[in-house]
């Protein structure tokens, strides 16, 4: 238990730093709201090395804290919707044991965008923004692919050091 709390703290700090770095560098993909999703590296790393529930905990805490630090109440709602949907999809895909990290990450990237868009459509009550779905799916594939390669390499190299 003591080890777990230490890991939670370390990974939460790491995830927050990723959020901060992402807030610092404005990587624009031409579509508002599209981000690289660096923190997903931390979530995937935790899923594969520490534990799935721990990944969920850190993910939720990270979203709330990052929302207070860099965003506002709305960005918390959006991030939470995207984060939870992508977590569920990634977990289901991982549980099948048929896919590697790359696929898990791509599915996470796509579902994160879709989750955010659904909440956005509900909040502004304008279903025309669902028009962005194809663009967001494609950007989710691209960012998920990049993050998947990165986190795959990290898990391969240091993933087994966190086993409790």
């Amino acid at each position: 238990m003591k080890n777990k709390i230490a890991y939670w703290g370390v990974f939460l700090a790491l995830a927050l730093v990723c959020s901060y770095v992402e807030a610092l560098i404005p990587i624009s993909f031409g579509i508002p709201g599209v981000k690289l999703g660096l923190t997903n590296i931390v979530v995937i790393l935790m899923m594969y090395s520490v534990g799935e529930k721990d990944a969920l905990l850190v993910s939720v805490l990270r979203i709330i804290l990052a929302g207070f630090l860099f965003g506002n109440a709305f960005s918390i709602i959006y991030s939470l919707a995207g984060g939870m949907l992508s977590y569920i999809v990634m977990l289901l895909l991982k549980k099948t044991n048929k896919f590697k990290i790359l696929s898990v990450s791509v599915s996470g990237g796509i579902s994160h965008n879709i989750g955010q868009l659904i909440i956005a459509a509900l909040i502004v009550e304008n279903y025309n923004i669902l028009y962005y779905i194809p663009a967001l799916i494609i950007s989710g594939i691209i960012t998920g692919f990049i993050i998947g390669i990165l986190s795959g390499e990290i898990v391969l190299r240091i993933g087994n050091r966190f086993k409790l």
Partner: protein
Amino acid sequence: MTKRIGKNDIIFLAVIIIFAVVFSIILKIVFLKQGDRVDISVDGKLYGSYSLDTDTEVDIVNHNGTVTNVLIIKNHTADMVEATCPDKLCIKQKAISKDNESIVCLPNKVIATVTSNTKSDIDVISQ
């Protein structure tokens, strides 16, 4: 290499990419219908609605009474040709004619959107 990517992953990624491409093509076909009118709003309030069938030149006047933007409707397309804002981004935006296309001039808070009289098929998608 076998540890990084497997056969399932390649199939999975291929299916998703094909799905995304097909989906976006379908949406393009559904959405890109010829519009009927262009609605201009200034500062969030509807300024006026003009039919795309008649060629006109619309001077958009803000609440101070000065002309901020000029929109020209010609050959069923609407294009912003003049603006008082410094960056002139709205002039660079391409002419609009299809349903739901829009030209936005942020400094002057002017938005021109093409709408159609018939209801868009979007309701089918959001179900």
